[in-house]
């Protein structure tokens, strides 16, 4: 087995707010293999973005703080290196794409300006070459007349086109890891599939590992090798694509699957859903965090926080009752992809 490319251990990121301490990410660990496509799913507010921002070390002090944890990348702990060293990693080796393409580009500079800036920052090229690289990057993401469009401002692109620009920017320096935080959430459904397809194909061509963050299971279904499910700042279940979609073990995952929209269906078919609202990550319940919303909870769940453990023939799950539950998936999902 090869070494993981990126290894996150016991990461905890808290925010101090007026209402109290927000434990946005509370002790998560995972590995990312070279070239792997890892999906991270969970309701909004479960800590997915904060996880990504923590890896990039972009959590803003003084409110946000990475309390403990290590992020090992090529033998170095990214949380311990200097800011200058970290800057070389950001954008150069680990790139990130954000949710809202409408606001993620600086409105007062041309797209070319912003691309060239990134390229010159991480590669030893002069401005003319950087411009060529930028034009190439734009045409890689299938923007017509790439060379001309470098001189356009972001507002002259549509949402889908802007997300293509963001992808071009993310991949322009051939990073080893691409973190895409809900890259298609803001786009309409037809564009979503195109963009996702394009992004993952380009990443595969370059051998770039991808962490794909989304709250929509349907998005990861067709595109990822492995999936981990987050709930209230922790990982509740992890496994291969098939594990998650055909053999879910956590009641939460099961609930998510029940309420997911299939890409090939227009209307949402609700088979079973999760009751209640996501917990506030300020006042987390003792024991299992999912307990208040779980149909199968027992006394043990109220007392003891379940840890992530491997189940024979299946993925990993953080549930005391994984073996006893028989969470039937009534519909073949994942087949769509």
């Amino acid at each position, binding site marked *: 087995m090869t070494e993981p490319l990126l290894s996150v251990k016991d990461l905890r990121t808290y925010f101090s707010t007026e209402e109290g301490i927000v434990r946005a990410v509370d002790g998560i660990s995972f590995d990312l293999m070279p070239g792997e496509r890892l999906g991270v799913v969970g309701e909004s507010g479960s800590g997915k973005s904060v996880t990504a921002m923590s890896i990039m070390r972009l959590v803003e002090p003084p409110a946000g703080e990475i309390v403990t944890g290590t992020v090992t990348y090529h033998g170095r702990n990214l949380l311990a290196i200097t800011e200058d060293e970290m*800057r*070389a990693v*950001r954008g150069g080796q680990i790139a990130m794409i*954000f949710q809202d393409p409408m606001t993620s580009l600086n409105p*007062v500079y*041309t797209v070319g300006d912003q691309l060239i800036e990134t390229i010159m920052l991480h590669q030893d090229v002069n401005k003319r070459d950087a411009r060529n690289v930028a034009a190439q990057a734009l045409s890689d993401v299938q923007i017509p007349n790439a060379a001309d469009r470098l001189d356009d401002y972001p507002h002259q692109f549509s949402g889908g086109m802007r997300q293509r620009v963001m992808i071009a920017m993310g991949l322009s320096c051939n990073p080893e890891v691409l973190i895409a935080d809900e890259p298609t959430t803001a786009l309409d459904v037809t564009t979503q599939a195109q963009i996702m397809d394009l992004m993952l194909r380009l990443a595969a061509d370059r051998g770039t590992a991808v962490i794909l963050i989304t709250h929509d299971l349907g998005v990861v279904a067709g595109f990822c090798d492995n999936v981990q499910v987050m709930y209230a700042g922790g990982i509740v279940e992890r496994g291969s694509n098939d594990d998650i979609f055909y053999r879910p073990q956590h009641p939460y995952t099961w609930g998510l699957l029940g309420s997911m929209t299939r890409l090939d269906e227009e209307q949402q078919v609700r088979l079973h859903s999760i009751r209640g609202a996501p917990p506030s990550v300020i006042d987390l319940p003792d024991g299992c965090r999912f307990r208040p919303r779980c149909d199968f909870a027992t006394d043990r769940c109220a007392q003891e926080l379940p840890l992530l453990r491997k189940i024979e023939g299946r993925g990993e799950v953080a549930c005391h009752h994984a073996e006893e539950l028989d969470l039937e998936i009534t519909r073949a999902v994942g087949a769509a992809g």
Partner: protein
Amino acid sequence: MFAYVIRRLVYGAVTLLALSMVVFWLLQKTGASPLDRLKLNPRIQPDYLASLTERYGLDKSGPEQYWIWLKRFVTPREASIGGLPSILAISAGVAYSVLASRFIKSRQFAVRIAKIGAGVLIWGFVLFTVWNRMNIVLDWGDSFRGDGPVFEDITLAAGASFRLGMTALFLAVMIGIPLGIYQATKQYSFFDQLGTTFSFVAFSTPIFIIGVFLQLGLGLYLERWTGVKLFYVAGMTSSSYESFTTLQRAGDILQHLALPAISIAAISLAGYSRFQRASMLEVLHSDYLRTAKAKGLPRRRVILKHALRNAMIPIVTLISLDIASIIGGAIITESIFGWPGVGRLYIDAINAVDYPAIMAVVMAIGAGIVVMNIVADILYGVLDPRVRYE
């Protein structure tokens, strides 16, 4: 953009027309007609009174008087624009403006700057040429206080007001904006709190209080207690100004300018720094700044390149709105510091209900505001590529 400027000028003219009607109407609606007021002045000879009545139509109805005033106001007494060179220069300016707005379409910031810069240079040359050769004397009437043609008073006073207003604006912009930016980057620090408190207090203090306190504190009592005369509390230059060397003159001007300029600047400065801080904070929390950081840009570049220009855009609008209050503030400050500007002219005219002078000054101030607002709007478009002038 050329068309845009023209349209804005037309709107401005409509505003000025409305302004003139309102003020003229109010002046008519006082219990005493201008004629009655003049009769009260024993120094005015009956034949002079008759000539004024004849000239301004003082015995006619209100609308007729307005019409007489308006005609006179827009018709120059003498006008020549200086022959062929001026005409050529103006044609060149217009030609450039039309061609440039038609054919130079690049969205590159540098090209936009170059295009507008060339426009400014060419028009500057045009104005310079025309200014040197033209001779326009407008007939804005004679002051009823017997000071002669109002137009001459105003052109003289405008220079003084311009000096004061521009200095104040310069101070406010050069201090207020960096202050706000610095505060935003150091949010919640002691310095930030201090700045916020200062701007809140300054913003809540009427300008005449600032003026009076500066005058008393830094002008009068500083000299009384230390014996050093740092600042003058009245006038624009000393009486012996003419005999000074250049250096002495510069010093003299600054000593006179400092206190009134600071009074006007203080309040605008407070507003700018508060506003700049808020807009900078908004930008600092924006998605595109996160993108810039995620690209690995150093913090300095993130702030100086990506944050600054965005954060400056809204402040330009604020400054354009503020021009009116700087001019308004100048009226009060000029009367406190005896500054021989348009504001003091206005107060004097108002006190005497000197109607040709009131009308002329109100129109001059109104026109100043209209022009400055257009300038600020154009600047806004230069900074923000999303703005299109239709």
